[in-house]
C-alpha cells in the first residue's frame, strides 16, 4: 500500500489588494478622520434652537445678537424671520447645550435696550454693543418648549424670583404709573408692573411685586395710596403740601401702611386698591372693613344744616366713624311733642376705638354704653369755619343729666346728645359784628372831613402861599454872604493866628519849662542821689573798715598792723574830715527842699510857684554840687585804700577769718561805689525820675 498523501488543495497566494498602495495614503485618511471627529464633536456640542417671537425686532441681527442669562452669554441669534402672516418677528436662537434643558415652558425673554426713565437709566452698555436678548428661567427642568413669546420690556416677575405677587386696582380718581416703585418708609420694597385699563374702562389694573424679604409688611388690612406728584390741601389745620420724595414726584410711586391691627397675611394674587392719597386710604378702612361697623342713631333737636352724609364722627378729636344718613323723625310718644327732629345715623368703626381683644360692633356698643353713663354725649361741632361744615363730636360733659343709651332689639341704639358747639362760635362772630356795627364810624368820618376842610383853608391862605418866596430870598442872601470874599478869608486868618499862637507856646515851653526846669532838676538830681547813696554807704563802709582794722590789729604781725593802722587812720582821717561830715547834712537839706517842692508840684500847687521853687532847688543843687564835687575824690581815695587793703589781705590767706571779713568789707564797699555810680547814671539818663518819683 502506498500511502498517498492526501491531496492538498493548493491555492495561489492572494495578492494583497493594497500591495501597490503607498504609505502616503495614511495622511489623507488621518485628515479625514480628524475632520469627521471635529465635525461630529461640534455637532454634538451644539444646543437646540428655540424660536422666540417678538413684535418688534429692533436691533436684533442674525449671528450678532446674543442671548444672555444673568448677563452671561448662553446663546446666539442664528436667524431672524417673520412668522406666518407677518404677525411677529421670529428669532431663532441657538442655545448653549449646558443650559438648554433649563429653558422650559416657563421661560421668558425680552429685549434689553437703553432706556431712560424717571426711575433711572438702564441698559446703557447696549448703546455701543447693540441690543441683546435677556432670558430668565428657574433652576428646575420643566416642560419642554421651543417656541416662546418674547416681550419688549423686562418682566416684573422673573421666573425663579420669589416675592409676594399681588394686583393693584385704581379707585375712581386714582392713577397708576408704569413700573412705579412701591416705597415703605423711604425704602423700595417692591415694584409695580405695566398698568392696563380694565375691560370696562372703569379702573386701571396692574400686577405688583413685593420683594420676598418685605412680604410680612403686607396684610389684608394694608392700604396703598399714590405718592406721585404732590398734594396741596387747605384745611382747619392750615395749608399742607405733601410729597414724599423728588423721585416719586417725577416718576410716581405708591406706598402703604397698615392703619389697624389684625388682618390676615396677604397671599399671592390678592387685589389691593390704590387710593389717591393717604387720607382716602385711611378713611377707606371705615367703608370697606372686614369688621362690621357699629351703627347707631343720634337725634338732634337743633338745626343741623351743614351736616352732610360722610361727615366725621370724632371721639376726642380722633375720627372713629362717619355719618351714614340724615332723616327727619316725628315721635310724639318719645319726645312729648310733634316737632320734627333730625335723626342722624352714624357708623362707628370698632377697630378705631382701640378695643382690647376682638374689635366687634357689640364690644364697641358696650364701651360706648358705659361711657354714656359717665357722661359721654354727642354734639354738633364746626368742622370748618370756612365752609360752615359740621361734624359730630362725642364728648364727656361735666355734670350731665343722668341718661342712658337707648338700646332696643328692633331699632338702632340711640345716643344721647348735648348742646352744640356751633352756636357758641356763631355767637362770637355775631358779637364781633355787633361791636363793629356800634363803632361811631360816621362821627369819625365827619370830624375827619372837618379837619380836611380847615387844612384846605389854611393851605389856600395868601400869606402862607407867599412863604416859599420869602424863604428863597433868605436863602439867596445867605448864600451871598457865604460866597463873599471876607467870609472866605476867615479860615486863612484863623490859620495864621493859630500858627503864631503855636510858635509862642512852643517858645514858652522851650524857654521856661524845658530849659530851666530840665537843667536845674538834672543837676539837682544828679547831686542829690549820688550823695544819698554814698551817704548811706559811708557809715557801713566805716564800720567795715573798723572791723577790718580791729581784726588786723589783733593779728600778731607787726608790719601788717602798722600798715593796717596807717590805712585805717588815713581812712578815718578821710571820713572825719569836716567836708565829708557836712556832706550828708547839706544833702539832706537840699533833698528836703526838693521833696517839698516836688510834693507841691505833684499836689497840683500853683504853677507860678514853679519858677521860685526851681530857683531855690537850683540853689540847693548848686550847693549840693559843690559838696558833691569832692565825692569822686573820696571815692577814688576809698578805692585806692581798698586796693591796698585787698592786697594786704590777699597776702594773709592763712588768716581765714580776717581775709573773709576783709573781703566782705571790700565787697560791700564796692557795692556801695557801684550803687553810687548806677544812681548817678540813672539820674543822668532820666532826670525826670527825681521829679516824678518814678
Amino acid at each position, binding site marked *: 500500500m502506498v500511502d498517498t498523501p492526501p491531496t492538498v488543495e493548493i491555492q495561489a497566494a492572494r495578492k494583497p489588494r493594497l500591495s*501597490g*498602495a*503607498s504609505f*502616503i*495614503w495614511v*495622511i*489623507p485618511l488621518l*485628515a*479625514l478622520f480628524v*475632520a469627521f471627529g471635529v465635525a461630529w464633536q461640534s455637532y454634538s456640542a451644539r444646543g437646540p434652537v428655540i424660536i422666540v417671537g417678538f413684535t418688534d425686532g429692533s436691533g436684533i441681527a442674525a449671528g450678532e445678537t446674543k442671548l444672555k442669562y444673568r448677563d452671561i452669554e448662553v446663546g446666539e441669534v442664528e436667524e431672524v424671520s417673520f412668522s406666518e402672516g407677518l404677525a411677529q418677528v421670529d428669532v431663532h436662537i441657538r442655545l448653549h447645550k449646558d443650559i438648554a434643558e433649563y429653558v422650559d415652558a416657563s421661560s421668558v425673554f425680552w429685549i434689553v435696550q437703553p432706556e431712560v426713565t424717571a426711575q433711572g437709566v438702564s441698559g446703557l452698555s447696549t448703546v*455701543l*454693543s*447693540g441690543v441683546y436678548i435677556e432670558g430668565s428661567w428657574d433652576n428646575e427642568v420643566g416642560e419642554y418648549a421651543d417656541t416662546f413669546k418674547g416681550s419688549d420690556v423686562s418682566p416684573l416677575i422673573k421666573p425663579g424670583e420669589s416675592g409676594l405677587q399681588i394686583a393693584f386696582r385704581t379707585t375712581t380718581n386714582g392713577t397708576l404709573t408704569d413700573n412705579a416703585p412701591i416705597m415703605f418708609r423711604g425704602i423700595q420694597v417692591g415694584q409695580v408692573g405695566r398698568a392696563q385699563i380694565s375691560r370696562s374702562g372703569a379702573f386701571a389694573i396692574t400686577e405688583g411685586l413685593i420683594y420676598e424679604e418685605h412680604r410680612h409688611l403686607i396684610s389684608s388690612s394694608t392700604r396703598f395710596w399714590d405718592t406721585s406728584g404732590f398734594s396741596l390741601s387747605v384745611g382747619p389745620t392750615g395749608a399742607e403740601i405733601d410729597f414724599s420724595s423728588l423721585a416719586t414726584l417725577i416718576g410716581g410711586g405708591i406706598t402703604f401702611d397698615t392703619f389697624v391691627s389684625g388682618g390676615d397675611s396677604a397671599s399671592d394674587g390678592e387685589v389691593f386698591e390704590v387710593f389717591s392719597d393717604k387720607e382716602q386710604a385711611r378713611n377707606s378702612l371705615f367703608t370697606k372693613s372686614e369688621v362690621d361697623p357699629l351703627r347707631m342713631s343720634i337725634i338732634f333737636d337743633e338745626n343741623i344744616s351743614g351736616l352732610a352724609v360722610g361727615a366725621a364722627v370724632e371721639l376726642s378729636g380722633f375720627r372713629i366713624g362717619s355719618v351714614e344718613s340724615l332723616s327727619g323723625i316725628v315721635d310724639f310718644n318719645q319726645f312729648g311733642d310733634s316737632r320734627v327732629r333730625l335723626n342722624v345715623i352714624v357708623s362707628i368703626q370698632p377697630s378705631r376705638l382701640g378695643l382690647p381683644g376682638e374689635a366687634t360692633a357689640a364690644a364697641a356698643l358696650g364701651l360706648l354704653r358705659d361711657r354714656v353713663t359717665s357722661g359721654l354725649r354727642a354734639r354738633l361741632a364746626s368742622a370748618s369755619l370756612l365752609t360752615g361744615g359740621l361734624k359730630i363730636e362725642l364728648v364727656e360733659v361735666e355734670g350731665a343729666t343722668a341718661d342712658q343709651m337707648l338700646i332696643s332689639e328692633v331699632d338702632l341704639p340711640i345716643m344721647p346728645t348735648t348742646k352744640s358747639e356751633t352756636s357758641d362760635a356763631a355767637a362770637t362772630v355775631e358779637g364781633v359784628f355787633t361791636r363793629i356795627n356800634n363803632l361811631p364810624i360816621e362821627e369819625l368820618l365827619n370830624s375827619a372831613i372837618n379837619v380836611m376842610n380847615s387844612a384846605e383853608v389854611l393851605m389856600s391862605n395868601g400869606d402862607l402861599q407867599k412863604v416859599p418866596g420869602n424863604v428863597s430870598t433868605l436863602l439867596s442872601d445867605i448864600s451871598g454872604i457865604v460866597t463873599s470874599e471876607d467870609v472866605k478869608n476867615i479860615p486863612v486868618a484863623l490859620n495864621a493866628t493859630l500858627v503864631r499862637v503855636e510858635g509862642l507856646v512852643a517858645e514858652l515851653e522851650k524857654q521856661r519849662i524845658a530849659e530851666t526846669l530840665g537843667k536845674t532838676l538834672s543837676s539837682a538830681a544828679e547831686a542829690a542821689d549820688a550823695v544819698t547813696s554814698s551817704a548811706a554807704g559811708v557809715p557801713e563802709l566805716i564800720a567795715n573798715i573798723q572791723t577790718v582794722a580791729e581784726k588786723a590789729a589783733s593779728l600778731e604781725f607787726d608790719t601788717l598792723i602798722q600798715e593796717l593802722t596807717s590805712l585805717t587812720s588815713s581812712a578815718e582821717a578821710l571820713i572825719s574830715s569836716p567836708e565829708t561830715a557836712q556832706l550828708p547834712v547839706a544833702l539832706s537839706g537840699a533833698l528836703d527842699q526838693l521833696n517839698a517842692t516836688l510834693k507841691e508840684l505833684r499836689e497840683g500847687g500853683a504853677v507860678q510857684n514853679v519858677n521860685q521853687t526851681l530857683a531855690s532847688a537850683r540853689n540847693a543843687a548848686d550847693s549840693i554840687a559843690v559838696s558833691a564835687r569832692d565825692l569822686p575824690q573820696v571815692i577814688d581815695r576809698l578805692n585806692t585804700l581798698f586796693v591796698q587793703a585787698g592786697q594786704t589781705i590777699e597776702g594773709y590767706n592763712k588768716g581765714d577769718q580776717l581775709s573773709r571779713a576783709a573781703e566782705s568789707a571790700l565787697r560791700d564797699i564796692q557795692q556801695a561805689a557801684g550803687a553810687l555810680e548806677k544812681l548817678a547814671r540813672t539820674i543822668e539818663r532820666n532826670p525826670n525820675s527825681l521829679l516824678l518819683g518814678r
Partner: protein
Amino acid sequence: MVACTRCTRAWPLGTPECGRCGAKLVSRDEHSLQKVWALWVVGLMCYVPANVYPMLKTKQLFTVDESTIIGGAFELAHHGAFGIAAIILVASVVIPLGKFWAVAFLAVSVRQRGGFTSHRRLLMYEVVEYIGRWSMIDIFVVAILSALVQLKGLATISPGPAAFFFALSVIFTMLSAQAFDPRMIWDAQDNDNEAPDHG
C-alpha cells in the same frame, strides 16, 4: 543611468545611493503618482474649511467682525478697493484652485494623453512649482496684521481658524506638486512615440 534628483549627478543604473549627497537613487518612483494624489486630496480637504471659516477676527471697541477670505475680498471691493480685492482673490482663490487643477491635470496626463505637448506640460509643472509658495502671502498678511494691530480694547485683529487650514492647504499642495516626478511626462511621451512604431 540614473540621475540624482537632488544634486543632478548621474550614476550608473542600480546604484542605491548618490555617492555625493547620499540621496536615494531611483529611476522612477513607482509611488510618485499615489503621493501626488494623496497630498492633493489632503490639500483640497484643507481648502474647504479655509474658505468656510473666518480668516480674520477684527475686534473694534464693542463689535466683533469675522470675515472669510472671499467675504473680506468682496467687502473690500464694496468699499472701492478693487485692486486689493483682486490681489486677494487671485492669491487666495484663483492660484490655489489653478494649482489643484494643474496638478490634477499633470497627474492624469501621465496616464492619458491630453491635448498639451510634453514641453507645455513641463512648463506648466515649473510654473506650478514656482507659484505655489506665493499663496502663502495671505498667511503672511494675516500674521503681520495680527502682530501689529493689538490695541487692547480699541481694536484687535486675530487670525481665524481659516488661516490655519489655508496654510495647511498651501503646504500640502506644494508637497503634492513636489511629489510629482516630471520625468513621467517624458515617459508618457516615449510611450506615445513608441506605440506607433510597434503597433
